[in-house]
C-alpha cells in the first residue's frame, strides 16, 4: 500500500503538489473576501471568463495566458463597478457575464483544431501536468498579490466591509475595490491553468467557509483558510494516484468533507 510519502517521492507528483498547493492557498486566502462579500458567483464568472480567454487565445494562436488575463480584466472591469441600473439587480450582470463567457468558450473551442482536449483539461483540471515554468510564473504573480494584501489589507477590508465609511474618511474605495478584484482575477486566471475551473472555484469557497466556521474571526480565517486548502490537495493527489481517480474531483470532495468536519467540530465545541 502506497503511503502519502511514497506518493510525493515521485517527481511529477511532488511538482503537482507544489503547483496545486500554491494555487489552492492563494485562492483560499482570497476566498475569505469572496465569501464574506457574497461574491461567490463573481468568482465562478471570472473563472469562466478566463477559460473563454484561453479558448480565444487558442483560436488566435497566441499564448493561452494572454487570453485568460485579457478576458479576466474585462470581467474585473465589469464586476467591480457598482452598476446603478434600477430595473435589474447587480448580480444579474454577473450571471450574464458567466453565461456569455461559457457560451463564448464553447463556440471558440468548437472552432479550434486542438481545443477540445484543452477544454476538458480546463473544466476538470489536471494539476498533474502543470509545467515547472508555469509554476514559477504563478509563484511570481502570487508573491505580488500577497505583497499587495500585506500592504493594503486594511484598505481591502474597508472597501469590503463598509465602503460608505471608507469614502467618508477619504479612502479611495473604488480604487481599492478594483485592485481587490484584480488580485482575485489574477489568482483565478493562474489557478485555472494549474488546476482547472472546478478546483479553482472550489478553493475559492470551501476552505474559506471552513475557516470562517472554525475561527469566527476575520484575521484568523485569512490564515487558516489556505491551510484548509492545502490538506485536501495533498490527499486528493495521493488518492488519485492510488485509486486511479481524477485529482481535481477527489480534492473537491475531500475539501467538502473537511468543511463538514469543521462544522461538526465547531458544533461540538459550542455544546461542550
Amino acid at each position, binding site marked *: 500500500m502506497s503511503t502519502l510519502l511514497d506518493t510525493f517521492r515521485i517527481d511529477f507528483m511532488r511538482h503537482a503538489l507544489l503547483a496545486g498547493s500554491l494555487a489552492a492557498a492563494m485562492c483560499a486566502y482570497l476566498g475569505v473576501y469572496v465569501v464574506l462579500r457574497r461574491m461567490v458567483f463573481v468568482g465562478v464568472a471570472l473563472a469562466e471568463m478566463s477559460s473563454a480567454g484561453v479558448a480565444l487565445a487558442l483560436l488566435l494562436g497566441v499564448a493561452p495566458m494572454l487570453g485568460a488575463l485579457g478576458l479576466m480584466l474585462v470581467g474585473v472591469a465589469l464586476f467591480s463597478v457598482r452598476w*446603478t441600473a434600477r430595473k435589474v439587480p447587480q448580480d444579474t450582470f454577473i450571471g450574464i457575464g458567466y453565461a456569455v463567457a461559457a457560451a463564448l468558450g464553447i463556440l471558440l473551442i468548437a472552432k479550434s483544431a486542438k481545443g477540445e482536449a484543452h477544454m476538458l483539461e480546463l473544466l476538470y483540471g489536471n494539476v498533474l501536468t502543470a509545467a515547472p515554468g508555469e509554476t514559477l510564473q504563478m509563484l511570481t504573480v502570487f508573491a505580488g498579490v500577497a505583497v499587495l494584501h500585506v500592504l*493594503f489589507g486594511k484598505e481591502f477590508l474597508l472597501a469590503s*466591509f*463598509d465602503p*460608505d*465609511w471608507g*469614502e*467618508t*474618511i477619504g*479612502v479611495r474605495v473604488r480604487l481599492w475595490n478594483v485592485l481587490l478584484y484584480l488580485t482575485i482575477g489574477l489568482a483565478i486566471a493562474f489557478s485555472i491553468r494549474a488546476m482547472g475551473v472546478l478546483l479553482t472555484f472550489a478553493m475559492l469557497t470551501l476552505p474559506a467557509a471552513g475557516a470562517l466556521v472554525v475561527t469566527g474571526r476575520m484575521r484568523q480565517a485569512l490564515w487558516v483558510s489556505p491551510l484548509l486548502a492545502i490538506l485536501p490537495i495533498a490527499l486528493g493527489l495521493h488518492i488519485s494516484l492510488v485509486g486511479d481517480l481524477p485529482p481535481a474531483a477527489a480534492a473537491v470532495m475531500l475539501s467538502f468533507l473537511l468543511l463538514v468536519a469543521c462544522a461538526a467540530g465547531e458544533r461540538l465545541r459550542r455544546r461542550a
Partner: protein
Amino acid sequence: MTDYIAPPARRDRHAATGQELVSFTEVSLAYGRRPVLSGLTFALHQGDYVGIVGPNGAGKTTLLRALLGLLRPRSGRIEMPCRPLRCGYVPQLQTVDEIFPLTVLEIVLMGRYGRLGPCRRPRPADRGVALAALEEVGIADLAGQLYRDLSGGQRQRTLMARALACDPDLLVLDEPTNDMDLAGEHATMALVDRLQAERQLTVVMVSHYLNVVVNHVRLLALLGNGDFRLLPTEQVLEAGHLQKLYGMPIEVAEVRGRRVVVAAPGNGERP
C-alpha cells in the same frame, strides 16, 4: 479592564463655536437621471444640533450622503469653508454587514484609517484613541466581542465610537433609533445629547421618528413638503409646518416637560 484614555482635546483645527462649517446653495440631488431633492439652501455651524425629519422616501438619506460628500450635487453649490471637514458618519444599522466576523475594536479602529493612509497599520496610539472612544460610549468592556454578537443598541454605540475615533467636526447619524425599543431609544439619544454637549460637536441626525428628534435637537428641518428650511425646533412645531408635511391635523402636546407630536382626530373620528 481597559485604561481610560481621555478623548483627544479639541485643537485649533476645529472651528470656533458658531463658525460656518458647510453651506448648501440651491442644491439639487439625483440618482442617475432620477431627481430626489431640489432647491436645498441652508448652512450648518459649529455646535449646531440639527434634526432632519421626513416620511420614508422623502430623501433624508440622500441629503446625508451629499453632506458626507458621497453624492455630488446635480446642480448648486456645497461649500465647506473649514476644509478639510472631518465627518463621523453613523449609518443605519441595517446597512452594516454583520457577516464579517470583526470585533468591536477592529471596527472602531476603522475610524483611524483615514489618518493612517495606505501601507500603515494602526499604531498603539490609534488603539488608545479607539479604546477611549469605546469608553466614551460606554462599551469599553465589549472591545473584544464580535460585532455580530451585539444587541442593536451596542452595535449603534460601536458605530458611534468609530465615528468619534476619527475626531470629527461633524457627527452625522442616519436613523439612530431605528428598530430600537423604548429603553434603547432613550439611551441612544441620551448618549448623542451628551456627546454633543461635551465635545461641542455639530450633530446632524435624520429620522422619521419625529417624537424622538423634537425633544433633543435645537434646529429642525422638515423634508418632504417642498419647503426645506432649517429653523429653531419650537418654530417648526408651532407654525403649522407639520400639518403641511403630513397632510393631516397635528397636535403638539407636552407631557412632563417633553414634547409629544400626535395626529389630531379628524371630523367624525373618535379622539
